[in-house]
């Protein structure tokens, strides 16, 4: 028996896989001009990570009161909010603040009604042209998947929201209506600084510093991008532990089988 030798084989296999991974991650998009966002501590990070539900709820409040005037979240439905701890009546209440067009009714007419939990988040603009017309030609992106649609993830969202600089560096010539933010590609962003110190009154009383708000919004968008994350990690531990035990049993079975050869 030579466990060392066998281990070295396993290590070699892992090393080849690892090198392949390194080659794979070489493909991160180089965005030369944008400043690299600093890594933050997130409650959802790592294999044991969990959502910070209170922060996500504040982020939702911030989205509703600030962001949703311009940014859609077309993958979310009001019913999804029940997984944030809102009960059925609260979800109905949130949904009913919005109007959706439904129909046609029995007369063939379209009609407006309050949104229901089964409706998707109501869009701020009916189409891209309307959004551009209201935003100085810029199109505010949908936020549903933002947290995993850029290499920086939630770190990028936090950095962008806290990274606005009032006076751009001297060598930067801002275009009409643009704002300076070194974390955005090219440094110029059409969105004005969206968060203000105490710009919102959190219903749970948390002091609304800009950093706190940015963190809450990032937490909310991370949840929106991967609402299945907690389920995934919980099941993942069961699966991986089961497979490790199975591997050990199969290894024992294999050794016993091969022992017959001599």
């Amino acid at each position: 028996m030579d466990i060392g030798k066998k281990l070295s084989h396993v290590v070699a296999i892992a090393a080849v896989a690892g090198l392949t991974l390194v080659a794979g991650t070489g493909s991160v998009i180089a965005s030369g001009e944008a400043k690299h966002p600093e890594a933050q501590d997130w409650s959802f990070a790592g294999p044991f990570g969990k959502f910070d539900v209170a922060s996500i709820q504040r982020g939702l409040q911030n989205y509703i009161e600030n962001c949703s005037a311009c940014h859609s979240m077309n993958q979310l439905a009001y019913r999804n909010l029940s997984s944030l701890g809102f009960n059925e009546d609260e979800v109905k209440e949130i949904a009913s603040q919005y109007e959706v067009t439904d129909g046609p009714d029995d007369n063939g007419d379209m009609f407006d009604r309050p949104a229901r939990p089964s409706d998707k988040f109501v869009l701020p603009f009916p189409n891209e042209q309307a959004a551009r017309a209201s935003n100085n030609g810029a199109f505010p992106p949908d936020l549903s998947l933002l947290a995993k649609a850029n290499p920086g993830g939630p770190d990028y969202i936090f950095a962008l929201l806290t990274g606005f600089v009032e006076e751009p560096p001297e060598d930067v010539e801002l275009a009409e209506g643009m704002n300076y933010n070194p974390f955005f590609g090219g440094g110029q962003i059409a969105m004005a600084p969206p968060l203000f110190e105490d710009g919102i009154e959190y219903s749970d009383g948390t002091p609304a510093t800009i950093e706190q708000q940015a963190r809450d919004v990032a937490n909310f968008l991370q949840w929106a991008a991967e609402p299945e994350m907690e389920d995934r990690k919980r099941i993942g531990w069961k699966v991986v532990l089961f497979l490790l035990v199975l591997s050990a049993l199969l290894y024992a079975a294999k050794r016993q089988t091969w022992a017959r050869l001599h």
Partner: protein
Amino acid sequence: MSAHTQPSGTGSGLVKWIDSRLPVFTYLQKEYGEFPAPRNFNYWWNFGAILSFMLVLMIFTGIFLAMQYTPHVDFAFDSVERIMRDVNYGWLLRYMHANGASFFFIAVYIHIFRGLYYGSYKNPRELLWIFGVVILVLMMATAFMGYVLPWGQLSLWGATVITSLFSAIPLVGDSIVTWLWGGFAVDNSTLNRFFSLHFLLPFVIVGVVALHVIALHVTGSNNPLGIDPKGPQDTIPFHPYYTAKDSFGLAIWITLFAAVVFFAPNFFGEPENYVRANPLVTPAEIVPEWYFLPFFAILRAVNFDVLFIDAKLGGVIAMFGSILVLFVVPWLDRSKVRSARFRPVYKWFFWILVLDCLLLGFVGGHPPDEKVFEGIEGLKFINLGHLGTAWYFFHFLVLLPLLGMFEKTRPLPTSIAEPVLGGGQSAAGAAAKPMEKA
């Protein structure tokens, strides 16, 4: 009735009844039960079983994903997100399928390098190897078309870049591209046909895998010593010895796979593909999935005209050539000795080739004009691409034939059983040790 073959194992009446009419049980017993395999496989021989598992996993997850997916440019992106959010365990299906592609390629690349190291392509296994390369080509086509289906930004733009390569063909290039697209841009008809072909090709792969396995069972497996079994003392029945060994290796593999699926499911993916496809906005950089990066680097390495061949056509020829050259490896390698264990010079060049492929993968992920190191002006990724591409072809087209002529190989052991069971003196004695009581 005496003409009927009797199943060799004990079976129920029903088994015997079926077997005397359609000898499936006899076949299984012969090809997977008693099938004599060299007794000295190491763990690199596990990847055949691992790849079979991955193929089945991809087909099963794919079939269930197809039940929920909508191949239309207006609905594809949302239908994938619906799978992720509203379909029960849809996220699990999709993450298994997406990461399954990556693990499938890791396994197939290890399997191919295993074959190169131990000379598994040599007489009499040339056809077996060729079927393997056909499977690789089919896998690449399938993976490429599958990546288009979620209809994110890189789906659309990756498809545009790769299909546009065919426009490099003189005279008919543009017509071919229009024909591939089914229109004048990558659009709904392209997405529809890619979905159709992405569903079809895996079953073609199953067919070629069958040929691969049949060819394997005619010639028998190669082994780490690269010498033929000389008698029963050199082989052991596939079952239970290699079924047990394969099961263990497969379980380890699935554990690694599960760790990625559950804890880092977007590790291999490009974030940009979570942005809905938009024909009016070109992404900052268009990169293929990681498993295509070495070939992408070769494509971009040819940035100069050669005689009447312009750079674009040259790049396409080099890229396809880098795969096609694998078909003729059995004839490029003139050495009579199979295993690199007894080829002291080839062994070194083998590992250099592995590093070269990793280098090409690294290069493929960076813009050609980007500096490799901050502060070193002269060295750009395109320079590394030139070097890596030149070495790749040099290895196969020049080194392999020359080594066969000039390399002084080590003496081969007289049999597989000798170093395993007795003669500790042999050169292979130490190397074959893991088998002893493995």
